[in-house]
């Protein structure tokens, strides 16, 4: 009790500013999403319910963040209330989708994201109530928000199931996958919190977060074209699909000047990393302060880049280097760029949260040992689920194609995920790996999961064309 009393007395100047900033950012995102949603007339359809879920999740995310920053205990109550409301709307969206599609919503990546976000929200509430990891939502809610925003952009119309997908085993497979992946996401969030409680230096977090954002922007800028443009996939609004030049070859259009802006942002996000590296050599504290201020500046620029990208990619027609004429594009054509930009902002914000409010965070989180144990527990749930998911998928493939294992990229990466977590368990059980090394392993595991889920679908070709 004494603990919460001291927390309440804390002034919340920087915190309040940040909450307002995040709130404004979220409000803008919601407004953009609303523009997409409002076109459909029917009020209670799955995309409007999903929109409601987005509002609640975003509200919950802000409140969790606010709790992390100011330590006001009432924030956490409202945050879980908002998560409950979001979960309810999300359940409604799942139910509506199920009803209107006439099959369980596991057939496309849109439907799977729907299930993933649902599971993540449910697990967040469980972690909060059962294990008392109160600020877990600060990490999981942003993931949920990115998921819902992605869903707003993906093709949402219900498509009839192709014959290969009409199988109970598929539903079993996908349900298990979503449960396993959500458990992996939770273990990732817990591992991050462990690192905070384990007194990992704030500078190390600075390095990690800036590496992440720099890598994101470098990745996006591989699409940099001559004269400062950025090439994005062309989109056909009538057919709601990407434009293909020939089988498997996408047509790219160039949005002028966007490349320059992103290059500027890259410089801004690279600046703190550069300052950090110099600091490593000179140990001049002033450099570190400068780096932290540079992170703050880079967030503003990142938001600017996101706004610019949203405005330019939503409408307008652009020329292409490979074909004559003007083509339109859409946010739906560039889900990776968009989630990269949003992800970069979240990661930088989380770093600032840590920088400004580390002591409060440390007081509110369970002890490092406790977090280490809960991380292991979530992986002990995730690993059997992963195993069964692979087994159900193999059984389904055997009934459909006559082969239980054909080494297609999705299968191979699922096996790699399994091996990474198997490695974690072996090191933990036989070598007694605890603490930091185990946490790194949990983080690596989740990175592989994300690659299996998104990366393989978009970057590598294979049989898993539906997802």
């Amino acid at each position: 009790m004494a603990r919460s009393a001291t927390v309440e007395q804390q002034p919340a100047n920087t915190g309040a500013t940040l909450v307002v900033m995040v709130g404004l950012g979220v409000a803008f995102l919601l407004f953009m999403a609303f523009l997409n949603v409002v076109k459909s007339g029917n009020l209670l359809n799955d995309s409007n319910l999903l929109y409601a879920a987005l509002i609640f999740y975003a509200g919950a995310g802000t409140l969790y963040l606010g709790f992390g920053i100011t330590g006001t205990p009432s924030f956490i109550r409202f945050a879980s209330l908002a998560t409950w409301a979001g979960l309810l709307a999300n359940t409604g969206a799942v139910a509506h989708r199920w009803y209107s599609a006439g099959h369980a919503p596991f057939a496309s990546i849109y439907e799977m994201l729907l299930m993933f976000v649902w599971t993540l929200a449910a697990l967040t509430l469980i972690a909060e109530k059962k294990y008392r990891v109160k600020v877990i939502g600060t990490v999981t809610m942003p993931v949920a928000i990115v998921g819902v925003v992605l869903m707003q952009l993906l093709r949402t119309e219900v498509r009839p199931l192709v014959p290969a997908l009409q199988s109970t085993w598929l539903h079993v497979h996908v349900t298990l996958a979503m449960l396993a992946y959500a458990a992996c996401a939770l273990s990732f969030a817990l591992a991050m919190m462990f690192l905070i409680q384990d007194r990992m230096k704030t500078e190390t977090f600075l390095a990690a977060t800036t590496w992440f954002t720099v890598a994101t922007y470098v990745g996006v800028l591989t699409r940099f074209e001559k004269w400062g443009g950025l090439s994005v996939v062309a989109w056909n609004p009538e057919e709601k699909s990407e434009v293909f030049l020939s089988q498997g070859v996408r047509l790219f259009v160039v949005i002028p000047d966007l490349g320059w802006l992103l290059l500027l942002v890259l410089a801004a996000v690279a600046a703190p990393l550069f300052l950090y590296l110099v600091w490593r050599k000179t140990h001049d504290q002033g450099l570190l302060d400068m780096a932290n201020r540079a992170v703050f500046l880079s967030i503003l620029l990142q938001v600017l880049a996101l706004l610019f990208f949203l405005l330019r990619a939503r409408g307008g027609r652009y020329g292409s280097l490979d074909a004559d004429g003007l083509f339109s594009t859409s946010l739906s054509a560039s889900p990776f760029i968009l989630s990269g930009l949003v992800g970069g902002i979240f990661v930088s914000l989380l770093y600032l949260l840590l920088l400004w409010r580390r002591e409060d965070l440390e007081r509110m989180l369970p002890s490092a040992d406790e977090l280490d144990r809960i991380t292991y527990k979530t992986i002990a749930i995730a690993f059997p689920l992963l195993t069964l998911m692979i087994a159900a998928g193999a059984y389904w493939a055997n009934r459909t194609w006559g082969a239980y294992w054909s080494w297609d990229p999705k299968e191979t990466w699922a096996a790699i995920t399994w091996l990474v977590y198997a490695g974690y368990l072996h090191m933990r059980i036989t070598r007694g790996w605890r603490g930091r090394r185990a946490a790194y392993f949990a983080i690596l595991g989740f990175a592989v999961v994300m690659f299996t889920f998104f990366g393989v679908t978009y970057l590598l070709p294979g049989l898993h064309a539906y997802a």
Partner: protein
Amino acid sequence: MAASVPRKIWQTLGAIKTGVILLILVVILSAAGTVVLQRPVTEADEMQRAYSPYVLRLLDELGLTDVFHARWFVLLLSLVSLSIVAASVQRFPNAWRFFARPYKTPDESFRKALTSHNLIPIKDEEAALSVAERVMQKAGFRPERIVRENSFSLFGERNRISEMAVYIVHASLLLILLGGNIDALFGWRAFVTLTGGQQSNQVQPQNGSPRKLPFAIRCDGAGQENYADGTPKRWWTDLSVLKHGQTVLRKQIVVNDPLVYGGIRFYQASYGKTGKLDKLVLTATPHGGGAPKDITIALEETLPLDVDTTVRLAEFIPDYVVSDGEVYARSNALENPAAHLVVESKKSGQAINVWLPPIPGFEQNASSPYAFDGKDIQMAYFTGLEVSHEPGQWSVWAGVVLMGIGLAVVFYLVHLRVWVVPVRDARGQLKLWIGGTANKNKEAFEQRFCKLVEQIEAELKISVKVGAEAPVAALAGK
């Protein structure tokens, strides 16, 4: 010295470090196999477009264009299996001793070292032990009386199988790898295409000569059902298995439901029209008056129309085009069909060319004694069947089930042990020593253990009914 080399190799194979290095290699190489285009699933010219000739030759020589069938990959997986075997065999005897001969009578040093233990002062050894026995029984520990020289102690446990769980998981993994290996060596995949009514006892593997089956398979019918928007909803094929000319099995297969006979599976893989005509249904109306009649005619078939006249279907073009005074087929799709009929009269020996639709320059429709109208075109269909033989799959499924069980035991069954021993402390006072341990999830066990001790304490108080006992018991807690 010579004997120690194989021993060293064996030890190295079983070391956890070797296992982890091998797994990292598997991870890296299989990841490479998903990034580099793989020959078995890529067209040859696409490979050439993607890589320069030099790079392609290098990749080919390294085996990176077919990682999952390369010899070194198989070798690597075999090494992983060997490593699992070695690790399990090396560690098994210890675990087995632990499992088969549980430690039932804790000696003094063990009693001191155990984290979870408690001492309760008692009056009567026998009575206290039977109280403890009752409480343990209720808590599900199934206590066992361990008789010593002149007294006895108690030992109770739950889920001893938990100590063996790791071996169950490793054995299941070996079963899966074994099944995969059997299939890689003895399994095969092939394809067969059948048209309606056709039968075959040969199937075509992706490369190599056709494979002969010990029975024949016949297609009795096949079809496709569509959703309202035209996308396919269901493909089906009625199949019969024929042995020595006798039908031994009939089944309708659909995409997720194959036919299995003699370990060979037939899967619905594709369905389509051959572009060839099966039957044409026509209405023939005599020019001289009389009732029109329906005829069903196949290509090159001759049917009598009346005593004098016959009709023959000479040509059927699914998608015709007229060019330079010739009728050509533009494609095999049923787009713009034309039928060429020849109407012959026995009496006059005259043959008249009738075209449906009438194509100027070819048709002599007006001089035919019958007028023809197309009613229905039944195109021949084919059904494509994937055929596979996987003798190892049962080992794989057995391994999967075993692994499910093993993992459930590994993660969710905890081996709990509780000992109750009557002891005398330094001052010669009689006490009940209660100790317990769990092989994982120790915090949860700690709570459970405390509850058990409390219950024994409470029961003892009831049975002894001595009011002054309470503060002593509290002091004796530590």
